[in-house]
């Protein structure tokens, strides 16, 4: 394995200073930093191969198409999808959820049907289902949280019924850090005949994910949280479902034939990719999954587990600090916390003065904060390139928060 110093050297931004101090980047759940391999792949594309894809017969267009479709193949292998036709490119995880909601949901859901989600969802996996169930007359239900910040799985028997058409849930919470038993939840959904959509926005970047082993019907994730560029996202779907679903958006690239009296759709995956895609970004995402695959996702998960273990131990000794969510065995690299009555914005602003970047707010997951009866929390989230020294810097900066704002 390469040293952490060598790995950090792959990420130019980690050399930055913020307010005179070396950057400590602990906002990885919001977006990760990008290694040189990704920056170079995008730069090379624009310098050497830039052309539209699937259009021209000229050399550049063929090169661009090969790079773009090559990325699809790498991403399929990264999550062990049976075929790259099952990898649909979107802008981000949010758009991928919306694709399923508007295409599958509008065509399928009827009054009396139910969609089950959970109280720990990111708004990306809440709001589309609120919109679609309102439009179709279906009912939206939630799996509540228990006191540890894990799902009330004891209620699944009553919440999952033959009325449930879809169980959509997050594999790893971006606030609680909770890692859900994804394969088990998929099996529970299937046992009542429901489909399972997994929000992998936090799991695909940080844990080994194998869609065939999970047996999920849909998986969504965002490239920018996994060392890739913004504007690159993925929907993985079961082949027969994707074949049967109507298009989400209409336009160029997604059609085989357009006549004034109607059109015929292109085959998978292009049926769902209307218009010129984010070519450079998808090529960048292809480089990102190569980078992660070289590190090895088992190593990434192990490294981040060690970091978060050290962080929770150190943080729990900070006076007045309360960590949200489950214990270390069920936790990925996310630690959201409150510090007495001090507002998270003040915490984040004072940490920023020392170069420590964390997030403050509700992290697009208001239902979780409602559950705890708090408006917001502070969140440190880790990536494999973080170090134990950076955890020390975080704790030192938190002591300063006490010194500045303590009563």
């Amino acid at each position: 394995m390469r040293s952490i110093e060598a790995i950090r050297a792959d990420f130019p931004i980690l050399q930055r200073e913020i307010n005179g101090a070396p950057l400590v980047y602990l906002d990885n759940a919001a977006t990760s930093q990008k290694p040189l391999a990704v920056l170079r792949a995008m730069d090379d594309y624009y310098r050497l191969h830039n052309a539209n894809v699937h259009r021209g017969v000229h050399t550049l267009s063929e090169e661009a198409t090969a790079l773009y479709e090559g990325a699809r193949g790498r991403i399929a292998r990264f999550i062990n999808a049976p075929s790259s036709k099952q990898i649909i490119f979107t802008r981000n995880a949010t758009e991928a959820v919306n694709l399923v909601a508007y295409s599958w949901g509008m065509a399928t859901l009827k009054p009396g049907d139910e969609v089950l989600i959970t109280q720990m969802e990111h708004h990306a996996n809440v709001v589309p289902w609120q919109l679609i169930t309102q439009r179709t007359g279906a009912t939206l239900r939630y799996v509540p949280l228990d006191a540890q910040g894990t799902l009330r799985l004891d209620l699944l028997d009553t919440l999952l019924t033959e009325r449930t058409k879809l169980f959509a849930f997050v594999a790893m919470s971006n606030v609680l850090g909770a890692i859900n038993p994804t394969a088990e939840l998929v099996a529970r959904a299937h046992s009542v005949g429901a489909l399972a959509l997994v929000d992998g926005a936090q799991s695909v970047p940080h844990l080994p994910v194998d869609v065939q082993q999970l047996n999920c019907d849909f998986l969504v994730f965002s490239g920018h949280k996994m060392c890739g560029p913004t504007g690159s996202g993925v929907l993985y779907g079961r082949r027969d479902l994707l074949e049967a679903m109507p298009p989400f958006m209409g336009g160029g690239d997604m059609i085989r034939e357009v006549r004034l009296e109607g059109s015929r759709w292109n085959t998978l995956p292009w049926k769902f990719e209307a218009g010129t895609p984010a070519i450079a970004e998808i090529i960048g995402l292809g480089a990102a999954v190569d980078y992660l695959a070289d590190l090895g996702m088992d190593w990434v998960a192990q490294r981040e587990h060690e970091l978060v273990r050290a962080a929770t131990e150190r943080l729990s000794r900070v006076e007045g600090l309360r960590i949200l969510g489950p214990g270390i065995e069920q936790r990925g690299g996310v630690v959201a916390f409150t510090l007495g009555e001090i507002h998270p914005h003040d915490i984040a602003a004072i940490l920023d003065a020392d170069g420590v970047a964390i997030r403050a707010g509700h992290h697009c997951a208001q239902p979780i904060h409602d559950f705890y009866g708090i408006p917001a929390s502070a969140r440190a989230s880790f990536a494999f390139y973080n170090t134990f020294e950076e955890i020390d810097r975080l704790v030192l900066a938190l002591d300063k928060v006490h010194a500045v704002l303590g009563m």
Partner: protein
Amino acid sequence: MDALYREAILDHYKYPRHKGHLDSPDITHFDHNPFCGDEITLELKIEDGVVTQAAFDGRGCAISQASASMMTEEIIGKSLEELKGWSKEDILELLGIEIGPVRLKCALLPLKALKAGVWGIEDADA
């Protein structure tokens, strides 16, 4: 940070002036900032078009709470007519800091509560 959390702001945050409630206020207005969860309830007593007493209650970040404390201190004795012309600049002058767009919402929440409470004006950014 040192710019944002200057002494006067910390002082108003830690020892807020006029925090609490008035007996039978003429105007009571609750406002909040759902993005960050700052909350303010502003109470005023008005006589002959002049603010004679002001109080606030709330919770939130140091900027929003210090801004409320400073504003209540400042508006007592002022006429509504004068206050109606208050803008973002008046609050920033009180706070005495430069503020980025994200935290501006925190700083302006008390003014927003004042404008909405007295005149029903919803947009105090102007």
